[in-house]
């Protein structure tokens, strides 16, 4: 299975959001899509799933433009979680997770498994609307996990942004497990440390252009991040031996 972004450009009216993006997803790997605000990360995901019509170029899934694939066919190969998800009905958590099986044969086992993997068993029968935003993010991720069977593509737009630290860690562990099971994950991330530590591959965007794509260690370099984010970065060593990418503040003598 291949996912190729072929010279893709997109504009919201007169405002260019993506320009000549050409890159190929690495199968069975976690790819972090990083970049400053308004660099086109979310727009790129929406072009890939076929929600937005590119002005030029296309996203090809196994050689077929995703825009031309019927949603039912797409749903068997690709799941997506938006940055902000709303449900305009008073569904319970289980009912929302079951929506992941809309175009696929119903499977109570996969739904229950997804609920358990996202640590949602305690709230499975509660109303989705009554949950915190972080819990809602986990529900939507469970919905996408219930949709995937084996290898496929999982597109995530900042899926842990409202989660507490424990659930951020657990969710990243789950995503790594999914990658281990053969799922190809494309994930918009703002936490550069998490991107550097967890992702295998990184796509770095700036003002709608792809600045670099490749192994995370080669893309997220201090010099390139300084250039793209206009802030100097450095790797900090913790007492436990871990490393963290952090912007250098003026009080610490940085530029």
């Amino acid at each position, binding site marked *: 299975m291949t996912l190729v972004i072929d010279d893709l450009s997109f504009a919201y009216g007169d405002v260019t959001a993506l320009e000549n993006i050409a890159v190929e997803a690495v199968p069975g790997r976690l790819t972090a899509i990083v970049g400053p605000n308004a660099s086109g990360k979310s727009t790129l995901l929406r072009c890939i799933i076929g929600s937005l019509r590119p002005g030029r170029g296309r996203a090809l899934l196994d050689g077929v433009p995703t825009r031309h694939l019927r*949603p039912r066919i797409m749903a068997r190969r690709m799941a997506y979680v938006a940055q902000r998800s709303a449900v305009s009905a008073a569904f319970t958590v289980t009912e929302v997770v079951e929506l992941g099986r809309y175009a696929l044969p119903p499977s109570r086992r996969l739904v229950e498994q997804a609920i358990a993997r996202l640590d949602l068993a305690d709230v499975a029968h509660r*109303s989705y609307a009554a949950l915190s935003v972080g819990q809602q993010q986990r529900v939507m991720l469970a*919905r996408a996990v219930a949709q995937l069977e084996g290898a496929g593509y999982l597109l995530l737009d900042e899926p842990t942004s409202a989660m507490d630290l424990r659930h951020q860690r657990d969710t990243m562990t789950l995503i790594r497990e999914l990658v281990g099971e053969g799922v190809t994950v494309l994930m918009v991330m703002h936490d550069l440390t998490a991107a550097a530590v967890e992702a295998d591959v990184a796509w770095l965007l700036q003002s709608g252009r792809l600045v670099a794509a490749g192994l995370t260690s080669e893309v997220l370099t201090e010099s390139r991040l300084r250039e793209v984010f206009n802030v100097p970065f450095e790797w900090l060593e913790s007492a436990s031996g871990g490393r963290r990418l952090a912007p250098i503040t003026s009080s610490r003598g940085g530029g």
Partner: protein
Amino acid sequence: MSGRRTRLITGMAALGIGAAALAILSILIDRAPGGVVSLAWPAASYARFRLTALAVGVIVGSALAVSGVLLQALLRNPLASPFILGVSNGAGLGVMVAMYLSFAWRGTELGQLGQTGPAVVGALGTLSVVYALGQRRGWLDPVSLVLIGVVVSTICGAGIMFFQHLVPTGLRGQFTTWIMGHLPQGTSGSMLLICGTITLAALVLSMCLGRAMDAATLGDDEARSIGLSIGPLRLGMFFLAGLLAAMTVTLAGPIGFVGLIAPHAARLVLGPRHTALVPGAALCGVILVVGSHAGSRLIDVGAGQMPVGIFTALIGGPAFIWLLLSGRGQS
């Protein structure tokens, strides 16, 4: 048996029994000229009229409710109702224009049967305009639909007032009676058959769309990603909802609040899943319209039988405010 299934069966049975009881009651209520109310099976000559009004009530109640469910799903807005698309004011403008032309050309009043054609033309014409203008990037857009619907409805309202200004005072009274909404007793059998068939077909079709409407409660991108073709679904829901609303206006005039309240009442009993919600809302719509009809025949304020539209508004208005204040209208 799972709790969900038990809830569905008992809820649906309760609504069915309630609707049947009110239907029988509306036939049996008899008001003597002195105002004394009794319950008795009417003489054959009266029974036909009462059964006709009941049939209109069942069709209008269920059609408005199904239309409401479709529109609330289409617009992702639990406070949407069939007339938000401007259908009632469009039909009203059609009737008012016909009244004016009948008066201006022939110097006569427009008969009740003569209102049907103009109401259909007005309602469907309004729907067409709202459909044409309520699109963004080639697909129906919920926010644009609501805004265009409100604006077109307001323009039609201004048109109604303009033609009311042109006709004599007596004709204004005829229009006022029409716009209050009532269940006519003289509707032809063929008209009832056509409208009944349309309503039943729309009900079954809407139930078939139930799972798709569940999926459409997600945002557009996520709904597409789980396999839903959102554009064709919206188109189908728009035309089904519009057709049902237009049909009810031609049958009984604009009867407000049924399409708003009936879906919520059904949600309280059956839950939010659309496959069960559609028939449940249809039963709630029947209960509301037929119950209001029975109520209007029970209560005599000295000015003849009260139009059923006033009754549904008196029930629906406070219920709407309760929905808003209780927060149930938010989800």
